[in-house]
């Protein structure tokens, strides 16, 4: 059970213990917090495995409890890249174990935990033998980049059911777990953050920075940026910059780091500052390259969190929308909006194209 920490039973288990985040400083939870930190750090390194002492934790409580703590820490950090790495890593780990479980177990998790409509069949079509079928609506509820053989058009569908092999169902579950973890982290509500948790978060950030871990996954950043995803604060800064308003140092830092993080090139960012009253190409370029991690420290900088934006007077209260209330970081806003295609903005004038 501890290897598949997403199952419903686990939540029940935690409740049973009557534990909450407030107890984090207790001696009982301390080891679990350590474990949570280790889990997160592990997930940042590509190809790394859990250290032995993690994979072999025999204390079931410890292993189970570390999971919600890890989620709380990541929610507090609010860095989408760390979040995703963790989700992918944990989901993959769960998937690995599932592959060894008997088919019955895999099916019962799919049905029980996710409510999927799954049938057991035995059909040989072409060169493959299928033992399972999932209703196409459940199949499509798992969304991930569809490599050709996962595209519906290349699947065999019989009267609404997509044929699957056991390892494929395990893979679907894995994707769903990943999504669930991300949702949990992104939607976690942290009212009062205990000191221990804050410290753990800082520790992780420091570790990530100093080891340059963020550089191990630069290619996973979005390759092309889309302005529709900019949060109000950034949209406003872009507007001001284009209009040639003089921006404060913090504003420039926030704008440049944000745009670099969503995939804008150094040239494009430099161009954006061209209208500044004090624009000097070489200087600006040098600074932007520095922020992009191309110079000196080789650290790629992240834009300030919403809280820091607010205290720097860069969060435009009057322009904030519903999505703003759910995020703690402008990048998270962007990430949510682009990734999920959610429109939270003001409604545009209806377009003839919208109707048929």
């Amino acid at each position, binding site marked *: 059970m501890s290897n598949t920490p997403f199952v419903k039973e686990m939540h029940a288990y935690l409740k049973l213990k009557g534990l909450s985040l407030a107890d984090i400083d207790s001696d009982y939870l301390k080891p679990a917090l350590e474990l949570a930190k280790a889990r997160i750090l592990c997930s940042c390194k590509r190809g790394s495995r859990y250290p032995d002492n993690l994979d072999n934790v025999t204390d079931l409580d410890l292993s189970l409890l570390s999971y919600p703590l890890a989620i709380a820490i990541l929610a507090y950090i609010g860095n989408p890249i760390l979040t995703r790495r963790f989700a992918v890593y944990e989901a993959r780990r769960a998937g690995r174990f599932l592959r060894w479980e008997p088919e019955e177990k895999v099916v019962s998790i799919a049905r029980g935990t996710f409510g999927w409509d799954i049938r057991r069949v035995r059909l040989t079509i072409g*060169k493959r033998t299928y033992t399972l079928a999932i209703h196409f*609506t459940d199949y499509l509820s798992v969304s991930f980049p569809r490599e050709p053989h996962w595209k*519906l058009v*290349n699947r065999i569908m019989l009267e609404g059911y997509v044929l699957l092999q056991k390892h494929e169902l395990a893979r679907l579950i894995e994707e769903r777990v990943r999504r669930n973890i991300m949702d949990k982290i992104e939607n976690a509500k942290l009212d009062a953050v205990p000191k221990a948790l804050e410290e753990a978060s800082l520790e992780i950030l420091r570790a990530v920075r100093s080891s340059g871990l963020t550089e191990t996954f630069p290619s996973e950043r979005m390759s092309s940026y889309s302005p529709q995803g900019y949060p109000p604060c950034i949209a406003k800064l872009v507007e001001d910059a284009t209009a040639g308003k003089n921006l404060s140092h913090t504003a420039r830092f926030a704008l440049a780091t944000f745009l670099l993080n969503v995939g804008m090139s150094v040239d494009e960012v430099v161009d954006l500052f061209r209208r500044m009253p004090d624009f000097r190409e070489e200087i600006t370029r040098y600074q932007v390259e520095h922020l992009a991690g191309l110079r000196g420290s080789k650290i790629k900088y992240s834009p300030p969190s919403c809280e820091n934006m607010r205290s720097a007077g860069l969060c435009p209260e009057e322009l904030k929308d519903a999505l703003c209330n759910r995020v703690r970081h402008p990048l998270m806003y962007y990430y949510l909006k682009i990734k999920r295609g959610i429109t939270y903005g003001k*409604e545009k004038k209806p377009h003839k194209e*919208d*109707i048929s």
Partner: protein
Amino acid sequence: MERRRSLIRRIFHEFYSERYELIEVPSDLPKREFGFIFFKSPDIMVRHKAFNNSQELLEFLKANVPMHAYYSTAHYKWPEARSMDEKMWLGADLVFDIDVDHIPTPCKTAHDSWKCLDCNLGGKGMPPETCPKCGSKRLERDAWVCDICLQKAKEEVLKLVEDFLVSDFGFRLNEIKVYFSGHRGFHVHIESEKVQHLDSDARREIVDYIKGIGFRPSISLNGDPDMSETGWRGRMARGVYKFIADANADLLTELGFKKREITFLVTNREIILRGLESSPPYWGCLHKLSKRSLNALFDFVKRSYAVDIDERVTTDIKRLIRLPGSLHGKTGLPVVPVGISDIEEFDPFSIEILNSASSLKLKILRKIPTLKLGSREYSFKVNERVKVPFSVGLYMACRGVAEIVNVM
């Protein structure tokens, strides 16, 4: 102009007072958003309307006489809210739009035309992407309904419903509702609980399946498919069989087959066919063809089975779609349900619009192409006064090419 429009509006008014039984009130009515376009300002859509019950909706239609009436395929917690996140999306019906607008039909060169608004260049048939002379995208198109076009749309609907929605996706016929769109095609609605929560990406996968987008023979046809199989494998097997059986040198050349390959196919036709129909089937002979030719063959077969649906409609989970039973303001034709078994005979011009009138006297104002509407062919001369069936007359009047002289 004003007078003409007000006469049309009067007919619409009578329609909504007399024939309101045609209005099909959407399921879950209070959770739907409505949008309307009125005669007084045909460029503005009034949105974010909602109705608590069918009575309210019918009264509204009668009192306000919309030129176009739409409702949301989505259900919302607060359909009247003005922004999407306040509305709170709860789910959406799965809808498909088949419209001959996007499908080239042979008759289009006879009745459709386009004009560039920037340089006045014009032409027959479907408009090009951009003006060939000045590159402008502002092309005005003059499009007409015709029986041949509608036949094409009906074939596509049958393929969509029977081959895809029923046999592959497993929907029951009574879950699938087909409506004439009021212009050049049909809308297919599925309201089942199961589809409500599909997001836009999921709907795109459904579209891709139906259009055969992303189909990879190397994956799907792995292990020679049998003609009795269902889904794309079966379709491809039957299509390839038919293709080989009918193949002639002209088509093969057009698809880019080499001389050597054409000779191979023609001389070995029987052997290849026997392989395809044997059990288990044997496709080995086909692999004598070059990869390029084989892919051209598969692509040709795939296109003959794929259905030409408008993906924007299916993937948009916040879309407004025409209200069944309402009149289409640009054609005067009613949006009506069509049974799948009756679709072949369906003729939108045979639907009675008003109980009280059966024909119209028109004065023709502009050139109208010769058109086959229902079972009859119509051709008019400018300035001529003619008596025509009511729906044909209303159609011409709504298109702005004729003036109603008399209601009879």
